[in-house]
């Protein structure tokens, strides 16, 4: 089960990111994970939010260009080697990871969330489920 990631185009100049976070704050959007990829003159913010529909609407209304991308989200044990195990899983499935980012969920839970964008979401998911890794659903994300 993949989840929807929101990608937002940002011009590379001071203030654009804060403008975007202001829009999200006003719409009361909880951001679960976020990363920023940059080139010389523009950037893409990628994020996982609790309410995708509401977030997309408020961003579009504020004239941000954004799109949805399917990504896989897993809960992993927050301990040395925790990430390595699941990455090995992708290797064994023969699926290339295009990018990934993390959301650490606090000191005491002992869990972390990893977001993966891969070349073949279905193949990776099928293989990892077989290994006992259950991807998070959109509902799981909303409930975190």
């Amino acid at each position, binding site marked *: 089960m993949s989840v929807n990631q929101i990608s937002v185009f940002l*011009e590379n100049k001071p203030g654009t990111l804060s403008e975007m976070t202001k829009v999200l704050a006003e719409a009361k959007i909880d951001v679960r994970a976020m990363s920023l990829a940059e080139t010389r003159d523009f950037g893409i913010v990628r994020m996982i939010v609790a309410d995708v529909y509401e977030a997309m609407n408020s961003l579009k209304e504020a004239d941000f260009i954004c799109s949805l991308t399917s990504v896989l989200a897993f809960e992993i044990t927050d301990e040395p080697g925790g990430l390595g195990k699941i990455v090995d899983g992708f290797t064994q499935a023969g699926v290339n990871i295009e990018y990934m980012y993390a959301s650490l969920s606090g000191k005491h839970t002992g869990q972390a969330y990893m977001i993966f*964008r891969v070349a073949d979401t279905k193949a990776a998911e099928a293989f990892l489920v077989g290994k006992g890794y259950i991807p998070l659903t959109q509902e799981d994300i909303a409930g975190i």
Partner: protein
Amino acid sequence: MEHYYQEEIECASPEQIRKIQDEKLRDQVKHVWDNVPYYRKKMEEAGVKPEDINSVDDLHKLPFLSKADLREAYPYGLLGVPLKDCVRIHSTSGTTGKRVVAFYTQGDIDLWEECCARAICAAGGTEEDVCHVAYGYGLFTGGAGLHGGSHKAGCLTVPISSGNTDRQIMFIMDLKATILCCTPSYAAYLGERMKELGYGPNDIPLKSGIFGAEAWSQEMRADIEKTLGIKAYDIYGLTELSGPGVSFECSAQQGMHINEDHFIAEIIDPDTLEVLPEGSEGELVFTAIDKKAFPMIRYRTRDICSLTREKCSCGRTHVRMQKPKGRTDDMLIIRGVNVFPSQIETVLLNHGYAANYLIVVDRVNNTDTFEVQVEMTPEMFTDNLGEIEDRQKELTDGLKAMLGIKAKVSLVAPKSIARSEGKAVRVIDKRKI
């Protein structure tokens, strides 16, 4: 069925047109000699007298007028009638120097409006049509010209002028406007806004549009036609010569017919000032042969184009001018290369970007920097950085192929480039030379 406003003139034989031109030219030269000391002095310096001008063949003997003359003679120096006989003025935006103030008698206004009525009829305008005039009203000739033309063509005229886009859209939809008159950049903007509001080409009642007052490309035309679901007609004119309607496009969309019963066109080499044969590209020069208050003889437009007398499928016989490549005023010289904003627009539209762009030129360490800012569109956006960079590179290569020099392409946030409701600002030249 082609629709004409004055079929007997618009489809007259070349001989008939020539006869009209010869007669009117003789009268006009005499009128100017008698009433415009500024031009009479020029004629005297050139050693030409009114009796030397018997026909269009003698036109080349007359001295040119240029924007510099207009500036020098400002405001009354080129006036051909007493002020009491004038009923109106119009003025240019003054973007390329001092404003031009042009004067009109009632007769001048009537012939100008007839020219615009021809353009409206060529775009299918009849008594059944609702003509939405969104050119600016006021000193600018766009609003007044098409307004008067629309009246003469018998359309229901909506004098909405420019601005307040959502109100414009409400009027277009509620009053079922069929003909839209505005600048092409505003038409593109209106289309963009209507799309945002959920109106597709089939929901929009417009059937045609008459767009002028700035340079636009074939690609921009295709874009506007698609979004609004219309046929887009070009119109050309200058305040100095009355305003829009000096020439206009017909259903063939193969160049604009010059209203030859009012204007004689020549193409000259802008350097040697020699008249060039038909088909050659050069600077367009006009002689207004029956305008009395502001009678321009051999006025240099600085527009670069060519003329053709090839038969047109619409039945009109008047000579056609190709869409000017650009006004020499709009032309930029970047790293020694001539660049017309319209060329950049062509490349952008070919690559799927909006026609809204900004050219920024500067000089750093004695070298020109050349940046083209383009707005990111939802269609062009993807989550994949590499793909966006590839598209950016394709655009850079496309510009290089068209212009011969390299531009830095910057993708900017949507709606960050200001939309204009009149003439669009496309160029920021920061060079201090």
